[in-house]
């Protein structure tokens, strides 16, 4: 039974209001009382006592449509904990507001200088808003810079969530209006991407992206020649489970620069999985969606197709830690397989096969996908760069990372061991001295060049400036009794590598090892 509360309820009229409510209840079912507070402006303790008495006779009582002033009173007096109190949704209009972002489930508008609202396009938005809030909270706790909404509002027929976002502009806007900041944008964009991908998510908290992509592959399989279809599904199936975080919709409209801080604003697509799935969706965002019609990217991101392609290419290079065009193309091809699979499925599900234009688009993607399937045997890739906490416990992980690259290059046993010794020496040095007694990270990059086959391994840390090569070599001719323990490792490194160099630049120690294989 619904009862409306109006105006002010205080000691002047509390008794009359109570009498009125009891009269209304006498005729109806008192098992369920809903107090509609849409027009309630104020309630004093006399009014609260009326509600308490009602609650005693009807434990399931709830109060709905409570405005923020009344909500504050109910909250302060502990009523929000004693009974169900539902806030009224503030009504917000986005007419004439600047669209500053766009995610999978809605658009983001700036409503005033300090606040933005994300308007959800689907009907069941309250559940989605709740979901996204939980995703954002989880990400924030795990160390990903993001904004969490503080209010839910009504926008026309749908709902929106409100965030505080001061003086912010999206990376898309920066790329569109300040092209000279391209390299800065790439660096920040890739730094956050690496951070996301190095975040381990507790089991069961986020959906598995592999399952989603497997669903796309199985759908598209039926529209491909039998062998190609089977191969597509097998490629996705062969990607191992990975419990690292993926963003799922990582493009430049979802990244905001607020003062000096970079924030992610669209978190409803968070998942876990192998990073190739992320690269697939990034390829689509910058290239795939607009490959046939370059106007699309201009409309969506505000910058042109050339800028998008350059940004994607530079980001991929920075993410992989390589400038080798061959390696970039190799990984891009894997990303394109996932990208085209998604585009084909999406178009078919949107009745694309029923129009001339749709069929042409699907044929375009299909042709490329078939070519790629022909030349690709795995979706897996390794980054040439590893960022890892510099502690000796991580030595095996560093060695495994380096060895993976050496094996791919067919490195002989002897050289492998020599490189291992050098890598150990440099990494353990960083672990022991660079940040002591604090902790910090080291970046290890492995690059292979052909003719002659040379492996170059670079270590970067931002600890105290220290040149390990400056140390005097130990005298290896001394007898056991005279030998000092220190300095041996660096000496071995110098002896067994073809080149070892050190420099200190922009606050970083950079040590480079070179070995001809």
């Amino acid at each position, binding site marked *: 039974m619904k009862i409306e509360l109006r105006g002010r309820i205080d000691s002047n009229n509390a008794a009359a209001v109570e009498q009125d409510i009891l009269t209304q209840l006498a005729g109806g079912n008192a098992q369920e009382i809903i107090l509609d507070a849409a027009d309630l402006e104020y309630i004093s303790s006399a009014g609260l006592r009326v509600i308490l008495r009602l609650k005693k006779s009807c434990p399931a009582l709830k109060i709905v449509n409570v405005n923020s002033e009344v909500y504050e009173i109910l909250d302060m007096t502990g009523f929000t904990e004693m009974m169900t109190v539902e806030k009224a949704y503030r009504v917000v209009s986005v007419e004439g507001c600047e669209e500053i972002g766009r995610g999978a489930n809605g658009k983001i508008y700036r409503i005033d200088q300090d606040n933005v609202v994300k308007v959800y396009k689907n009907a069941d938005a309250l559940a989605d808003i709740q979901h996204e809030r939980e995703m954002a909270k989880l990400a924030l706790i795990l160390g990903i810079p993001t904004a969490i909404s503080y209010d839910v509002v009504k926008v026309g027929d749908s709902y929106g969530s409100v965030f505080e976002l001061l003086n912010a502009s999206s990376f898309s806007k920066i790329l569109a209006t300040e092209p000279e900041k391209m390299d800065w944008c790439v660096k920040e964009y890739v730094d956050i991407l690496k951070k996301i991908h190095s975040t381990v998510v507790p089991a069961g908290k986020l959906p598995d992206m592999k399952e989603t992509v497997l669903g796309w592959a199985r759908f598209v399989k039926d529209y491909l020649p039998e062998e190609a279809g089977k191969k597509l599904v097998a490629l996705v199936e062969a990607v191992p489970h990975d419990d690292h975080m993926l963003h799922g919709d990582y493009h430049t409209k979802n990244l905001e620069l607020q003062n000096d801080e970079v924030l992610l604003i669209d978190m409803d697509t968070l998942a876990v999985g192998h990073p190739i799935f992320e690269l697939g969706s990034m390829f689509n965002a910058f290239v795939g969606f607009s490959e046939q019609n370059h106007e699309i990217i201009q409309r969506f991101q505000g910058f042109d197709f050339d800028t998008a392609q350059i940004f994607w290419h530079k980001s991929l290079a920075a993410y992989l830690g390589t400038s080798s065009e061959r390696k970039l193309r190799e990984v891009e091809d894997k990303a394109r397989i996932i990208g085209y699979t998604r585009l084909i499925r999406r178009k078919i599900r949107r009745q694309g096969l029923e129009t001339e234009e749709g069929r042409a688009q699907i044929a375009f993607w299909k042709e490329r996908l078939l070519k790629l399937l022909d030349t690709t045997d795995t979706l897996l890739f390794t980054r040439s760069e590893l960022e890892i906490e510099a502690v*000796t*416990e991580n*030595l*095996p992980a560093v060695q495994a990372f380096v060895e993976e690259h050496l094996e791919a290059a067919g490195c002989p*046993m*002897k050289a492998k*061991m*020599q490189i*291992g*010794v050098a890598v*150990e*020496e440099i990494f*353990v040095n960083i672990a022991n001295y660079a940040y002591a007694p604090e902790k910090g990270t080291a970046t290890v990059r492995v690059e292979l060049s052909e003719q002659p086959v040379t492996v170059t391994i670079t270590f970067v840390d931002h600890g105290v400036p220290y040149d390990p090569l400056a140390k005097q070599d130990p005298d*290896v*001719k*001394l*007898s*056991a*009794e005279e*030998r000092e*323990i220190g300095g*041996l*490792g660096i*000496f*071995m490194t110098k*002896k*067994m590598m073809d080149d070892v160099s050190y420099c200190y630049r922009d606050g970083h120690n950079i040590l480079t090892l070179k070995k001809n294989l």
Partner: protein
Amino acid sequence: MLNIIKNMEKDTACFALEGRLDTVTAPLLESELKEALPSLSVLTLDFAKLEYISSAGLRVLLSAHKAMAGHGSMKLIHVNETVMEIFEVTGFSEILTIE
């Protein structure tokens, strides 16, 4: 990973090392040796299955060698080519007894 298979009889011991002797695993060998050394006069280290040694491993060998020098002897057997090269580069092949 490092496995140490110990074979001890009175004052004679053979430690067979399997795997990697590096910064992470050297402390394990160091503590095993520290415990056994005082009562030994003959120590043999079997390197047949040792795949890798770094300076951290060399340090343990050097201090074991010094500790044994007073009351016995230490020798290395079955040293493979790549490990042998490390001993040569560092002059350890001159210090240690290697068969």
